[in-house]
Every structure is written in C-alpha cells, then in structure tokens.
C-alpha cells in the first residue's frame, strides 16, 4: 500500500533523512519511533507530500507521491492524516470540521456529508458535541474529532503524526482506543508515536529511526524482545522503565 524507497532529504547542511526504505502492506499497522529529531515526523509527512524529498521514491496505492506530475491534492484526499496538535479549524463547528473536505474535495452534498460526519462522530463518541467549536473540547476530544475528520474522506490509509504527544496523560487512552479499534478493522496505518503499549497491542511492525536513518525495522514481537540495534535497546530501556 505504502512503499518508501531510499528517500533522502536535507535542509541546507542538515541531513534529516538518509536513505530510508520501508513498506506498509494493505491492512498493516506500522509504528515509527525514535528519539526526537530523528526524522520521524519528516518521514511521515513525505508520505502524503507535505514534505518533499531530495531523492528516492514513495508510492501510495499505486500513485507515485514523489513524481512531479502527480496531482498531490487528489492523492492526499485518499490518505487521512492526524496531527500532533489536532489542527481542527477553530472557526468552524465540530461537524463542519468533519464535513468541509467531504463537500469541497469529494463534492458530496451537504446532507450526505452531515450524515457521514454524524456517523463518524458517533463512532468516536462525540456525536453530542457536533455543534460545539473545537476550543470548547478537551485535547482528547479534539483529537478524536480530527480522526473522524480524516476518516470522513474514506481514506485508503491513515497517517498519525504523534497523535497523543500533546495530550494530558488521562486523555491519551481515549484516543488510543479509537486507533486500536481502527487497526482491528483492518485500516492501513502508519503511526509515529512513543506509545509502546499501543505498538505492542496492534503494530505489525515497528520501525526505529535515529539521526535520519531507519536503524531497525522488524515485526513488533521481535522489536521488543530481540532488538538488534544498540540504540533501540537503549531507547526501549529508557522509555519502558521509568
């Protein structure tokens, strides 16, 4: 579904991605982790073309993201993305947030979009908040709306860029629960996160990045029990025992 093939990227003299390759099959859940500044967020933003690459190719569902001729907007409409800071539109109601791109991009009618939107808000447990503005919701609720907004486009894959990093601890689970359910339903997911519990429960594979390189890429069980790389052992011991 998603194939990342030898991509590199630098900002001036700083190499943020070096020769990164991995693939995510249909229905697979891949967690990307690593220390901050390792390039995880840049990597996931390359997948829907929010960041360009200097070399290498990325293909999503048969479309080459990195090709010049690709209609990125059309491609992005098929890939859902959830951001660290939610990025809901503050001037619109929750329901309008979920409907905007359905109407403006997919050309659904207003009624169709509202129907779909309410159904998804129901699913993330927020149907009762449809008429509120994002500022009236907690962080966890906002992030669940953001997930509903992305799902409303019927995406072929979902990208999560540190979806719980900006949340208070007591709100993390309500977001992870929605993501776990999504994973169990067979959604193709790429998730940048430090939530190792989530990785253990639903990830098919875990990718570990350090200094712009993918230094470990293996099935979740192996990643946690038999990490091959010294940096991964270090990282896991820090993040799991404190």
């Amino acid at each position: 579904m998603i194939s990342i093939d030898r991509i590199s990227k630098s900002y001036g003299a700083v190499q943020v991605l070096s020769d990164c390759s991995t693939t995510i099959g249909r229905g697979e859940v891949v967690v990307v982790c690593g220390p901050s500044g390792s390039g995880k967020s840049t990597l996931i933003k390359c997948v829907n073309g929010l960041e360009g690459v200097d070399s290498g190719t990325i293909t999503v569902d048969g479309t080459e993201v990195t090709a010049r001729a690709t209609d990125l907007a059309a491609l992005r409409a098929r890939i859902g993305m959830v951001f660290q800071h939610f990025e809901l539109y503050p001037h619109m109601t929750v329901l309008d947030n979920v409907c905007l791109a359905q109407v403006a991009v997919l050309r659904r009618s207003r009624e169709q979009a509202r129907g779909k939107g309410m159904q998804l808000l129901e699913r993330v447990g927020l149907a009762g908040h449809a008429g509120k503005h994002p500022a009236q919701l907690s962080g966890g609720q906002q992030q669940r709306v953001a997930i509903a907004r992305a799902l409303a486009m019927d995406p072929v894959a979902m990208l999560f860029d540190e979806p719980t990093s900006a949340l208070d601890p007591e709100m993390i689970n309500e977001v992870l629960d929605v993501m776990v359910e999504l994973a169990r339903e067979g959604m193709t997911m790429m998730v940048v996160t430090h939530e190792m519990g989530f990785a253990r429960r639903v990830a098919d594979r875990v990718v570990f990045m350090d200094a712009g390189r993918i230094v470990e890429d293996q099935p979740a069980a192996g990643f946690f029990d038999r990490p091959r790389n010294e940096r991964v052992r270090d990282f896991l011991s820090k993040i799991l025992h404190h």
Partner: protein
Amino acid sequence: MQGLDFSVVADARPFLLQGMGLSLTLTLLAIAGGMVLGTLLALARLSGRAPLALAAAGYVNLVRSVPLILVIFWFYFLVPLAIGRPVGGFYSALIAFVIFEAAYYGEIIRAGIQSVPRGQVQAGLASGLRYWQIQRLVVLPQALRNMLPVLVTQGIVLFQDTSLVFVVSLHDFMTSSVIIAQNKGRLVEMYLFAAGVYFAICFAGSLLVKRLARRAAA
C-alpha cells in the same frame, strides 16, 4: 462665545448630508476595493514565488512612499490620458483610494495571514484541499477575525482622508462644510460642527475597535 448661531447648520442640512453621503460612499467602496486588491497583494507577497512577491512588495513600497493627495492627482489627470476620455472626479478619486488603501490593507492582511498557524494549512492540504480553497475556507476567515480591529482602524483613517477629494472638486462632507462656512460667513460654527461630526463618527469607530480587539483576544 457670544453670537454663535448654529442655525446655519440646520439650514444647510441637505447639502451637508449630501457631502456626508459622498464621504461614506467613498470610504465604504474604497474599503471593499482596497481589501480585495490588498488580499491579492498579501497572497502574492506570501506566495513564495519571487517575481510575484517582488512585484507586490514593489507596489506596496511605492504607494506607501507617496502622499495620498498625489495619488489622487495622478489618477485625475492620468486615467483620462490613458483611456482617452475624462472619468470624472468621483471615479478617479475612488480608483486612487482603492490603489492607495490596497497597499495598507495588503500589509495588514499579510500580518493577519501570518498569524494563522502553519499547521492549519497543512491540515487543509492533507485533506486534499487546493491552495485557493485553503485560503478561502481555512486561512482568510481566521486571519480576518484576528485583524478586524486593525482593519477598522484603517477604515477610520480612510474616512478622514476622504476630505482630500476637494482637490478634484468633489464635495465631501468637509468640503461642503467649508463652502457653507464661507458662503454664510459662519466659519466658527461650521468648523466646530464639522469637527464634532468627525469626532463622533471616529470615536464610535474606535469604540468598535476596542470591542473587536477584546473579542479577537478571547
């Protein structure tokens, strides 16, 4: 203050109202036109395309370095030369105001657009929206809310500036007051009255600005 006779105001009411009508019409049309052109200038400056950004920056800097009264003169004399027939004081003044105000509105709108977090644009892009859709549906509504107080302030300045149209023989409120004052020999009364009217309108405007600023901060 003996001998002040404000009945001159009442007598000249239709003439003064006509002048105020022109002042307000010019102000509102210039705000509308200046904002449309100003938005385009702001988007050009922020487009990241060097020729476009440079042209817009050049426009803004040129216009802002010239006195408004000169811009009004230019369009009064130059536009007829360009199109081969006179356009009249009103239209040449209106064009001049739109051209002039666009430079100021453009800078205000640019600051407003930059006040919208970059993540909002990314969220729009990620959902498949195109550039103009993101500007129209996501960025500009938020930018407008943030910059509304400054826009209204600029509108007040513009309202005062409309008094400059006397140079192309238009009768705005100020010019009408001057004419009455001189014809009737009631300079003190008319100038006090005109000052009072400008004060009332502009003060009401700045109260509005305060309220808008509080709301934008909330």
